């Protein structure tokens, strides 16, 4: 058993990473080929940075991810607070089940259903809505919301409710108690919900594919359009860059986490 696991774990992980590593290597290939390596070159990276659509798509992706994750966190945090305080079990379950729909449904169904709604909304004459940034913000906020609630609601549930009551007894208004007692207690959940929403938004392709317009491209949509027909070696460069950024972020988060833990350990 032990020997088997020594072989099996590395084998699967190598297979999992091999394609990505090979593509990163060949993004530096001067030949522009997947079959032979001619020499080291950065020309595909240069081509990528000269492509204005790519840079614009990156900008769109980032602004969309920031706006939609903030919006989802704002709505979701208040919602989690409200759901936690609800007395009717029926109401609670109903809201939670509806909230989970975008998470359980295949992305393509969420995408086309929202597209149908927006098609109808656009045809209403006095509604100033059109496919593009606005529809994308709505869609991305919608699919991020269940994840925000999933990370924030348990924090409210685990909270000691007597703390709030103590605050109220000591003269806080309910609003003040919320901001001074309850909100600080759920901050870790809010942060993880925000980060989750941000990464989901950056990564989403399927839903965006249906609710965006050609003049509002995000990075995944740009990759899709670029890879639709022929092989583009600048896409390999983009892949390599994105993997690098993800690695960097992961290390940063881990490093910040261990730093925070270190501080706490010192205090104790």
């Amino acid at each position: 058993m032990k020997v088997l696991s020594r072989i099996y774990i590395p084998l699967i992980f190598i297979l999992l990473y091999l394609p990505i590593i090979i593509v990163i290597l060949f993004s530096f290939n001067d030949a522009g080929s997947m079959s032979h390596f001619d020499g080291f070159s950065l020309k595909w990276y240069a081509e990528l940075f000269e492509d204005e659509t790519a840079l614009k798509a990156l900008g769109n992706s980032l602004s969309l991810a920031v706006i939609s994750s903030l919006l989802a966190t704002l709505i979701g945090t208040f919602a989690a607070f409200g759901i936690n305080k609800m007395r009717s079990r029926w109401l609670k379950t109903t809201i939670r089940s509806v909230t989970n729909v975008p998470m359980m449904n295949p992305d393509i169904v969420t995408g086309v259903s929202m597209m149908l709604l927006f098609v109808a909304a656009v045809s209403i004459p006095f509604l100033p809505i059109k496919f593009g940034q606005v529809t994308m913000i709505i869609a991305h906020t919608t699919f991020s919301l269940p994840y925000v609630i999933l990370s924030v609601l348990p924090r409210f549930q685990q909270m000691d409710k007597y703390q709030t009551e103590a605050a109220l007894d000591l003269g806080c208004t309910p609003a003040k108690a919320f901001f001074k007692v309850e909100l600080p207690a759920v901050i870790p959940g809010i942060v993880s919900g925000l980060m989750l929403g941000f990464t989901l938004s950056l990564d989403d392709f399927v839903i965006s594919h249906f609710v965006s317009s050609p003049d509002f491209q995000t990075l995944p949509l740009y990759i899709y359009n670029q890879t639709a027909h022929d092989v583009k070696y600048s896409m390999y460069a983009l892949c390599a860059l994105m993997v690098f950024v993800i690695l960097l972020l992961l290390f940063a988060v881990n490093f910040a986490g261990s730093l925070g833990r270190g501080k706490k350990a010192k205090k104790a």
Partner: protein
Amino acid sequence: MKKKSFIEGFAAVPHVVWMFLFVLLPLVFVVYFTFTGADGKFSFDNITNLSRYLHIFLLSICFALIATTLCLLIGYPLAYFMSRMKPKTQKILVVLLMLPMWISLLIRTYSLMAILDNGGLFNTLLESIGITRVHIVGTPGAVILGMVYDFLPYMVLPIYTSLSKLDNRYYEAASDLGCNGAKSLFRVAIPLSLPGVVSGITMVFVPSISTFYISQKLGGGLFDLIGDTIEREFQNKSTYNIGAAISLVMMVLIIISVAVMNRFSEGDENERGIIV
């Protein structure tokens, strides 16, 4: 009991309104388009016409089932071995497992295609050792391989989460009572990790059955899966209705199969591994 304050009563209202407008209402539109013709009149034509798409449904279900089974067969041992490693090693392996999940599916699929393509590295390697080139892209195997490669981490992670929560003393008790390694795997680990398995199966099956990028890239456009069909029908306003009908049927199929599977695992929702 004190009266509910204003903020408590209304905190969830924006969310409820949002969910109504952007989750429930869109689904109402899907149902509406399913039961109307292109002229906007009520009809059952879209549902009756679905029989023309039966082979697409069967092919997609078949591909998704094979991919899910392979993921389970490859993923379960991986999750099991991972859960038996030292805690420090486990932590590193979990990060390694989650890393591909953060890399865009488009990138992972495209990388795989770049390697397996006719002029790609794999065929060049085959040729250099004296074997003739093989067509991989454009075969059913390539599509299934793409699904397994893309979604394997989604199978392993929930199973690993279930297994890592298992108290080591269960295994000790099993071995004290005369189970060998294999027997304790089948009589202890597998039954107790069933909720994770169910969650893993759902997380692989749902994206597999609804994908269109994988079949476009690795199927070489030769295979029409449900996802491809929906995507195509929604490019043209006159076929929105049939597209909506296909989406609705797929959604109902998935809801039924998930409900049936959840019956099999009696664990409650919080015990199932969820990636956060």
